């Protein structure tokens, strides 16, 4: 069974039809790309899947459960994590705290445990600490644990955001333009990192990306959107020569 299946998803904002009949299936270990010109509705898809918007029409089934009407934190608890186009870290909390808080939904203790410092609290915090250290270590961030994200260079902030998403223990990771704002060298590093995450964590990754180099090297499958509709879906090689895609990116005259 597919990990995520999206059926006839549509979303309109007032009079604007941002997304029309979007269909999609992702298995338990896929690396899929989503591309399209600006305003095509890519981030809308992510916002719908992560529960940030409730779709006007259509169904989303994630991890065997229909997620329509769920709040984002409930979808996260099912195993979905994402990063943002413009980095959204907690800038005045340390890197370590950023990673810690991402384990909030599986803390397993409440207010009284925290205040009375019960055995359950001690166990849970020990667990959280260990997982944080593992993730920071794996993501090469250990030397920055005490830093505030706002003091880190942009590329590192991206890495912290990725680490934070992984800290929620996802089965599907949505990346919204992970290469935005990175220089050529950083982009190579990012490609390497995403491939490493894919191999190491054995999770599905679905990414929106404008830099062709990134999607072409990484993705097994590519979807192209334009004006809220899917115009192509297939292997990267096929997409490159698809006339509709070329028209969407370069205009009709180019064909």
């Amino acid at each position: 069974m597919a990990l995520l299946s999206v059926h006839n998803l549509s979303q309109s904002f007032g009079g604007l039809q941002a997304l029309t009949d979007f269909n999609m299936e992702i298995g338990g270990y896929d690396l899929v790309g989503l591309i399209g010109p600006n305003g095509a509705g890519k981030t809308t898809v992510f916002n719908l899947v992560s529960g940030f918007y409730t779709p006007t029409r259509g169904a989303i089934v994630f991890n065997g459960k229909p997620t329509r009407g769920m709040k984002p934190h409930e979808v996260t608890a099912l195993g979905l994590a994402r990063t943002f186009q413009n980095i959204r870290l907690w800038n005045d909390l340390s890197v370590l705290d950023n990673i810690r808080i991402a384990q909030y939904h599986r803390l397993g203790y409440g207010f009284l445990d925290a205040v009375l410092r019960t055995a359950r609290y001690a166990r849970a915090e020990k667990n959280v600490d260990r997982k944080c250290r593992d993730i920071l270590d794996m993501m090469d961030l250990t030397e920055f644990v005490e830093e505030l994200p706002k003091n880190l260079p942009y590329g590192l902030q991206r890495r912290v955001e990725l680490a934070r998403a992984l800290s929620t223990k996802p089965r599907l990771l949505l990346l919204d333009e992970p290469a935005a704002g990175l220089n050529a060298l950083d982009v190579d590093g990012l490609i390497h990192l995403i491939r490493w995450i894919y191999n190491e964590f054995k999770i599905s990754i679905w990414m929106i990306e404008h830099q062709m180099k990134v999607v072409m090297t990484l993705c097994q499958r590519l979807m192209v959107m334009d004006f809220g509709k899917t115009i192509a879906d297939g292997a990267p090689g096929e997409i490159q020569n698809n006339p509709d895609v070329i028209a969407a990116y370069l205009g009709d005259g180019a064909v």
Partner: protein
Amino acid sequence: MQRYSINILFVAGAVCLVLAAQAGMLDNYVLTVLMFMGINVIFATSLGLVNGYMGEFSCGHAGFMCVGAYVGSLLSVACFTTNKLFGAPLLSPESAPFLFPLVLLAAGLAAALFGLLVALPSFHTRGDYLAIITIAANYIIISIVENIDFIGGPRGFSGMKRTMNAMNGVLEIPWMLIWVLVVTFASILILHRLVTSTYGKGVPAVCQNEIAAEIMGVDTNRVKTMAFMVSSGLAGVSGALYAHVYGYVNAQAFNILKSTEGMVMVYLGGMGSLSGVIMAAIAFTLLVEGLRFALPALDGLLHNLNLLPASYEVSQVWKWVLIPLCLVLLMQFRPEGLLGNRELSHYFPRLRRFFTLK
């Protein structure tokens, strides 16, 4: 042992204070100031959870103090004293010293429930709009209390001194000082443990980026409910203590001016700094009390130097010019407050070696 150094220091200090009070070394005025210091610390640090750590702008914190003050007073008067309202005591007056903590707890719980008045709207709105709602909540609470004639309405409510007498009847020790010290320490501990736990870190996460918090698995509505209820609950407990220290409560004592005092202490100490707000609450209490002596002294000095006409007196009203002026200067030169969003140990790392609170 060293992990609990602050805990031990506080307990030792508290025991010394109680012994000194028992031996009659502290006069009533000093005792009262000490107790108000503790009450202000609870009031300000609890507000700090919402205005500092959560970054909301609650301007009606005194309203919750009012709920706690009235609920605590009514309960203690009804349970432990003979009075016009309820007649004979419901429980034996001898039980007062043992059951008084339960009265405080009930006052806190009642105030926490009223905290929902602000917590529920906070799901949908924040910032300036929520600030307006908190002011409204403050007024709603005061108006409710003022319009219940049964509990004295605008005349206020008294009789708590008899509860004190009941406690003193069991054992003659400075009970109120003990309660204030115990509760102050307990609430500092609650807040400290909360904000240092991963569970409590949800609060600054909501403050700094609510969208990210929600998407990273933090149930933001639950965090807000928790923060508002803990904050208003502790304010309620401080209100109950206040009512018993004074022996008299009046709804107007908890109007927007009192809420403002709380905000002054929080912004003076630093938003998101527990140690900063504690220091600010102590300093603020001392400042207010100090002006009580400083203003007449200044008045005398200026008259002696013939700088002021004999008809003009520098009265206590000037307090409410000087304190807001402090706030203006603070916002101008150190808008983040004394300690900003860091704790004292951040500025003096060596302290951490010897002093830790658990």
